[in-house]
């Protein structure tokens, strides 16, 4: 009220909200901040990359002429496409392993008594707050020659000397990504399981289903949307990751993410790096669209 008629009832002008802009203008200004800021901070750099991808370098110089040569180079060069396909395969493997692991974890959590359940879910989410690098170094500690795995095997007498085979190869990348990305898989599945009304399980029970039949016919189909979202997360994060392969992958673990990184770093070929990023973005978008469709099956739509 004071904004509309500031002087009235002895309220001094500027005492309330003040004689500022009229309501609609305020709203518009607010909307500009809310929508504009992310647009500038997130979309503008992305757009810049998109533009970069269609330029090229001449020596150290970036030539600002439109060209498709970056994409042609990528498609025609065997070593690039091989890394690309290898990385897609790696991401699919990580996704599948995590699907099994994440589902098992989420299901166990869901079956816990309520007083344990949320504490443990929180524990599962805590690593998300930790630095990514620390998590990877922690995995190096597990997989390395002085790591837990080697120490255990030596202690058990399975091997005499610590083995180097657990680190600096593609398997190390697989294991590290699976562990680090597990929360992204388990949490959406857990949420989907939590959303299943208890009466549905009781109804299934009541109608004569065994526990396995209830799982197979009710729990599993109703948790699939969550599993789809989790699979999407882990795939997209795994396919573009460069830090884990960099730190535990060695030469064998040279992935697409590292390839992109190297173009910006060592090679200093930003246009080619941007083009490779655009390809990655395209893969991610396709996966997200597919997952979004699969994640909302037709029975959910009225």
């Amino acid at each position, binding site marked *: 009220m004071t904004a509309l008629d500031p002087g009235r009832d002895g309220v001094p002008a500027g005492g309330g909200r003040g004689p500022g802009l009229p309501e609609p203008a305020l709203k518009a200004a607010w909307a500009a901040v809310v929508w504009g800021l992310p647009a500038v901070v997130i979309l503008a750099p992305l757009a810049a990359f998109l533009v970069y991808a269609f330029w090229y370098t001449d020596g150290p110089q970036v030539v600002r002429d439109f060209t498709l040569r970056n994409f042609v180079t990528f498609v025609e060069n065997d070593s690039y496409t091989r890394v690309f396909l290898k990385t897609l395969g790696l991401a699919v493997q990580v996704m599948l392993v995590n699907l099994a692991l994440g589902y098992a974890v989420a299901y166990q959590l869901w079956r816990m008594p309520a007083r344990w359940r949320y504490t443990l879910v929180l524990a599962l989410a805590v690593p998300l707050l930790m630095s990514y690098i620390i998590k990877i170094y922690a995995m190096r500690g597990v997989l390395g020659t002085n790591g837990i795995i080697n120490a255990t095997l030596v202690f058990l007498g399975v091997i005499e000397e610590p083995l180097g085979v657990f680190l600096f190869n593609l398997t190390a990348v697989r294991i590290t990504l699976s562990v680090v990305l597990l929360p992204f898989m388990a949490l959406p599945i857990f949420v989907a399981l939590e959303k299943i009304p208890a*009466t549905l399980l009781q109804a299934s029970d009541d109608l004569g289903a065994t526990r396995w039949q209830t799982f197979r016919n009710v729990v599993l189909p109703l948790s699939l949307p969550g599993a789809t979202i989790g699979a999407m997360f882990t795939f997209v994060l795994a396919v573009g990751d460069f830090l884990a392969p960099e730190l535990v992958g060695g030469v064998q673990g040279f992935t697409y993410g590292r390839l992109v990184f190297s173009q910006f770093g060592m090679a200093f070929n930003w246009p080619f790096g941007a083009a490779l990023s655009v390809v990655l973005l395209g893969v991610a978008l396709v996966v997200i669209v597919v997952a979004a469709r699969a994640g909302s099956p037709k029975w959910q739509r009225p």
Partner: protein
Amino acid sequence: MTDVAIDPGAGATPDEVSAPGPEAGILLRIEGVSKDYGPVRVLDDIDLDVRNGEFITILGPSGSGKTTLLRLIGGFTDLTEGRIVFDGADIAGVPINRRPFNTVFQDYALFPHMTVVRNVGYGLMVRGVSKRDTERRAAAALETVGLTGFGERYPAQLSGGQKQRVALARALICEPRLILLDEPLAALDAALRRQMQQFLKALQRRTGITFLFVTHDQEEAITMSDRVCVMDDGRIEQLGTPEALYYRPRTHFVATFFGDNNLIDSGRVVAAGPGAGSVDTPLGRLAVAADALGPFSEGDPVVVAVRPESIGLEAGEGEAAVGDDGRNRVAVDLETVEFVGPVTQVMARVRAAPDIRLEIKVPSRAGGAPVAPGDSAVALFEPAACALLAGHR
């Protein structure tokens, strides 16, 4: 029922246990069942027999334990004490999926990812019945509930009433001998609820399956059931036909649970013969029917309950006495006369005991009520209209 107030004679059914007759078998027997949640006793020593083929309703306010009782029978919770015997066998250790009855849940509990026909056929599918047989019987069950042609829809595409019917069909298809219904109409709007009440009642008659229905809605219980079991605070207050509960309440709770009631305090039984009895009250000596006396004998303190619509009015002065026609007559002064549609509601002060007011409902008639505030009148009611409750409430 419409002329009860003018000539309150018919209406009261003396017999508490009338419905399917004594030869009808007991399908489900609940013996001394108690249930504790931690230190809280939510069910206390419940005894209840459910007869084969009846529509029995467990009625109570929220927190009365009615849903807990249903969940115990359904096998969703374990009992603390007592036995539940189905068809002669104790079912304490029988898991839910082996119990020979089915539940209709309050929120319908339809599987959202299955079509209607798959929902309905679920009980047969998990038993390994062939796909063709399942579909045929599911179609038949859908026909029974009037949903032919809805088989390929998903639950999200159905209205509340349709979902309820699917839930019923899903329970019916297993051919249970008993169906447990947990407030199945609570989520429906008033008009649809009335329609579903009639539908449920008709379905129960047609199939002959015993229905054990749980609700907090008095009207629903009265209009649908053969017998009603009123619960409060974890105990059974009274079990009987709807008429018996309405006209022969045994407790204060039941007397005031179904509609309005005049409770006349500090009465004392003065005669309890086999033919009829009489009770001294502040209104004077009232004649009561023999069946209302129930467990009371001479000298017992009682409260007399009379329904407002069981009381008639006669203009003019009168003595408090039992009239020549056997009706109780109480001299009153009218305080308010209020037209409320089909009935006219009168508040009358008892002349012999001015601190007692009687609520009286007489049928309205065109041309206005024949009585007005300030009039003297005589309130009339049959001995059979009086129910007796234990005194000092």
